[in-house]
Structure formats: structure tokens, C-alpha cells
């Protein structure tokens, strides 16, 4: 397989960058604030470099063995679909969530979530119109009860709406 770097390796590199930043940033802190993050990130930096070395060696062995590169061969989750599809599906679901966030920002949490539940039931889950409306209403009811009884709050939108919608 020509792909020499999988997302798995990229994640290890992300950890490397994170811990390196941890060391870099901690240098500027006062002594009392510095010790803990400094030593933790230093130790982690060394460990992650060792780990990446192990990954590289394993990757070379696997490619050399003619069994294809290490792409996804040792994922911890069993997928019965190609890995590319998993990433696409993940991005799709992430996109839906970001869409919900944007809706929350615009019209406030209760209305956005009610609409989300209704639309998800109708178009993603294939429920009937009636079931979708009932589900949306149930979600709104839950939010109203939880905010009232438990004193919980929710994000308001740009557009002000009367309770329990905004």
C-alpha cells in the first residue's frame, strides 16, 4: 500500500506536538506553577518519542513483510466496513453536530434541539411524521422539566424567544 502514513500515525504526531508545546510553554511559568506540568510533559515527550519509534519499526516490518502498511490494521474497534468509510461517516456525524451547534447559536438551545430531534427522527431514522413530532415534543418537555426542577440552564440564541423555547 502506498499510503505511508495513516491517521493513526498522525494522532501520535499530534500527541508529540502537544507534549512538546507543554514543555515549551511551561518554561515561562513561575517556579511553583512550573514543576508539575514541566516534568509531566517532559516525561510524556520522551515516552511518545519512544512510542513513535516503535510505530515506525512496526510499520517498516509490516511493509517489508509484504502485508501492506500499518493502515488501520491494529485498530481497537472492529469495523465491518472499510476504514475510509468509517472516517467519512465520522466526519458526517461531526458535521451534523456542528450544524446543531450553529442552530443553537442562532435560535437558542431548546428550539434547536427540538428541531434536531424532529428532523433526525423524520429523515435519519425514517420515523413517521407523528412519531417525529412526538419525539421532538418529548425532548422539549424534558428540557423544560429539567431546567425548572433541577435549576439547569441552557444557551440562549441570537433570536430571543419566550419560555420554554428561549
Amino acid at each position: 500500500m502506498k499510503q505511508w502514513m495513516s491517521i493513526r500515525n498522525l494522532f501520535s504526531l499530534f500527541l508529540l506536538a502537544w507534549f512538546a508545546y507543554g514543555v515549551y510553554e511551561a518554561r515561562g511559568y513561575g517556579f511553583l506553577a512550573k514543576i508539575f506540568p514541566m516534568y509531566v510533559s517532559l516525561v510524556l515527550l520522551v515516552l511518545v518519542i519512544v512510542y513513535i519509534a516503535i510505530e515506525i519499526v512496526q510499520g517498516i516490518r509490516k511493509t517489508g513483510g509484504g502485508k501492506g502498511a500499518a493502515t488501520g490494521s491494529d485498530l481497537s474497534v472492529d469495523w465491518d466496513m472499510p476504514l475510509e468509510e468509517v472516517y467519512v461517516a465520522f466526519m458526517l456525524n461531526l458535521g451534523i453536530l456542528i450544524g446543531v451547534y450553529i442552530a443553537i447559536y442562532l435560535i437558542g438551545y431548546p428550539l434547536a434541539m427540538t428541531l434536531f430531534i424532529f428532523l433526525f427522527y423524520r429523515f435519519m431514522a425514517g420515523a413517521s411524521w407523528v412519531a417525529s413530532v412526538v419525539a421532538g415534543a418529548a425532548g422539549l418537555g424534558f428540557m423544560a422539566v429539567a431546567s425548572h426542577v433541577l435549576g439547569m440552564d441552557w444557551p440562549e440564541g441570537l433570536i430571543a424567544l419566550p419560555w420554554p423555547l428561549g
Partner: protein
Amino acid sequence: MEAFFQALTVLLTPSHLVYLVGGVTLGLCVGILPGLGGIVGMTILLPVIYGMDIHNAFALLIGMVAVIPTSDTFPSVMMGIPGSSASQATIMDGYPLAKKGEAARALGAAFTASLIGGLFGAFVLSLIIPIARPLVLAFGSPELFMLAVLGMSMVGVLSGNQPIKGIIGAGIGLMLGAMGDAPAIAEYRYTFGFDYLMDGISLVIVGLGLFAFPEIIDLLIKGRPIAEKAELGRGWFDGLKDTLRHKWIVLRCATIGVIIGFIPGLGGSVVDWIAYGHIIQTSKDRERFGKGDIRGVIAPESANNAKEGGGLIPTFLFGIPGSGSMAVFLGGLLILGIQPGPSMLTENVDLIYTAIWSLALANIFGAGLALMLAKPITKLTIVPFRYLAPFMILIITFAAYQASYSWGDLIALLLVGILGWLMKQFGWPRPAALIGFVLAGNLEQYLFISVQRYGFDWLTRPGVIIMTVIIAASLGASIVYQNKLKAAGRTAAKK
């Protein structure tokens, strides 16, 4: 002794019972929902317990965590998929029994075994407290620091497939925990210039992001098998009689459960398999295991309820959580203003007794409710996941927003969620990260006090040296063991 029974009378007042039953009911639901276990259940409750009466909050939290290993048996038996990681082994014999039309017998045996195992765990916890008292009180900050390091290294080594990944996993938690204001001085770390990060990330966000978000996304991608039929069949009383007939299995496996719960890092995902392996090894007639032997249901179910009692021991006495759900429980204690550790034994011993009684009562209520409500609960197992998903997203975003009522909460949930999903895919142990996150603050404080009080002499205290040796030995042993396993795997692959 007086305090022991006083705690019971406090707990038996109506308001406490309401919270306990509330926690038990929620725990039953969380156990049945796929992918959600004690960690997510407890995390959702954290925003609710702010400012609550401490005994009520205890009843709620412990009521929930105690019964998840009871109700997660439903999906294991009815569908052959685990309701949470603690009942994977139950599938081996529970699911075949259900296929034979004996689901009721399997569930009856499982609930009885869960009940006895849970009561046994509470009993052991009550015995340990007075015995451990002098030992625990001898621990100073240096020993507590090393103990926290020991706990984390055990979690790291035992919870993943590679020790180095486990330790880095715990380190990821420490790095997340180091964000925000430093405990010893007014200085803000790793805030990237965002005001939101000045208080650090809340446990609610980290718990839901690392555990709930990845499960929901994966279930959305995969879909989930649905029980073809939800028939319980016959045999409730046969199941009950089975468990009583195998009472020695129940006690042996409950003992295993307590011990494993006590050891940091093992916890929910292996306790059931160890009990299952134990029962196969010690049985003479093994040929029916895997085909619907009731002993294969009784063994893991008595062990997984008992482990909560064992897990509470290090959590209370040393402030070191043995598992992910105990880490969240520890975070809950901090929210309530209680500092777990040796001072629990001098200042808050009544709370420990409240916890013990809550654990015992929750197991009784949990088993009772599971038996009574078996029919409607079984119907839940045929609801496709896509109908549950939007409500789960509603609950986790709603709970996350209660952390600090700001948009930062929702954004942090998404980012930690992505981190959690990637960690799950690439085999970085998330429980280790959660425990590291919860312990970060304590570790830093213990380290400070040690250095300030003893200079570098703290390293030469006997307790510290002993624990350094234990940490080194456990790390060394695990690396040797992992290499042996790999070598064995290679030879097996060649054949």
C-alpha cells in the same frame, strides 16, 4: 459501631430513599442502554449534585453505580451484546440460554447473583474500614503521592494492550488536568489565551467527551443489532434456585470481584472474564460452557456487582480511584466539598457508612426492580439505536453546558469528544486518561507538600522507597509479560 447504625437510620428517611431509588432507576436505564456504563451515568449526575445535601448526593451516585452491573445483563442475555463492559462474559452462556427460551432463568440467576455479590462487596467494605484505619492514618503526603503514581501506573499498564500506551494515556489525563489555574499559586497554564480555560476543563466535559461522545458516534456509524424477539420464556424461580444451589461459586466469584475492584486499573472490563475463567478452570464438567451453562451466568454476575464495594476502598481511604467510574465518583466527592483520603476516616466516617448502606440497599432495590420490571425493560432492547441517539446527544450537551454555563463548555465537549473518539479507535486507554485527569490536582498538591516539608528527603522515606520498588516491578513484569504474549501470538500465527 454506633455511627454504623446511625448512618442506616439517616438513610432510611424518606428523602434519602427517594434519591436512592432515583439513582437506582437511572442506573437501570443506563445499564440497559448500549455503550453507556457507570462513567457516563455518574458524569451526567454531576451537574445535578451541585449544592445538594451530601447524604442525598451519596444515595443518588452510589444508587446509580451499584445497579449498572445488574441491569447491563438484559442486553447481554437478550441480544448477545454487552450493556456495559462489566457483563461481556455473561453473554457466553446467557445468550445461548435465551435462544433456548430460558432468558428468564438466566436473568433470575443473574439478578440473584448480582444481589448477593453486591451485598458481599458492601459487607467487605464495612469490615475493611476499621481494620485499615491505623495503616491509612500513617500515610503522609509523600506516600500518598507515590500511591497515586502507583495507582496510575497500574491503570496504565493493565488497561491497555501496550504498557507504554497506557502510561501515555494516563499522561494525557494529567495534561488535561494541568490546564487552568495552578493549585499553589495564582498563575494560569495552557489556556491558549481563552478565558474559558482559566478554570480548567470540568470533569463533566472530560467524562462525557472521552466516554459518551465516542460511543454515541460509533453506534450511529455502525447501527446496532436489535433483539429479534423480546421473549423472556420461563424459569424465574429456577434461576433463583440455580444461584442458591451454586452458593459457593457466588461467594468465590464475589471475593474475586472485591479484590479486582480494589486493584487500580483492572475494574469493570476484566472482572467478569476473570470470574468466568475461574469457574471454567475449577469445574469438572466443562463441556456445556458456552452453550448455556447457568454457572457461566452466575460467576461473572456475582463478581461484577461485588467489585464496586472493593473499588470504593482505595477511593475513600487514599483518594485513588481504581476505575473510571470511581474516578468520576471521586470528582463528585470533590464537588460536594469532601476531600477523600486518610482524613475521611477521622472527619467523615459517617459518610463512608452512608456509602456502605447505600450500596447494600441499592443492590436490593436494583435486583427487585429488575425482576419486577423485566417485561417492560426487555421491550426497551428492541428499540433501534437511531431512536435513542438524538436524546443522548440532548442529554450530554445539556449536562455539559451546566459545567460553567458558557459556550466554551459545548465547544470543549466537541473537542474532547474528538480526542476521545481517536483514542478509542487507536487503542489509547481512556479510563487511564480519566483517572489521570481526576488525580492531576491531588498529585500536584501532594508533590508540593512533600517537597516543601521534607525537601528532597521525601524520596528516602521507607514507604516511598517500597512503593517505588512496587511501581518498577509492576512495570517491568508487565513489559516482560506483554513480550511473552506477543511471542506466543507470533508462534501461534506461524502455525
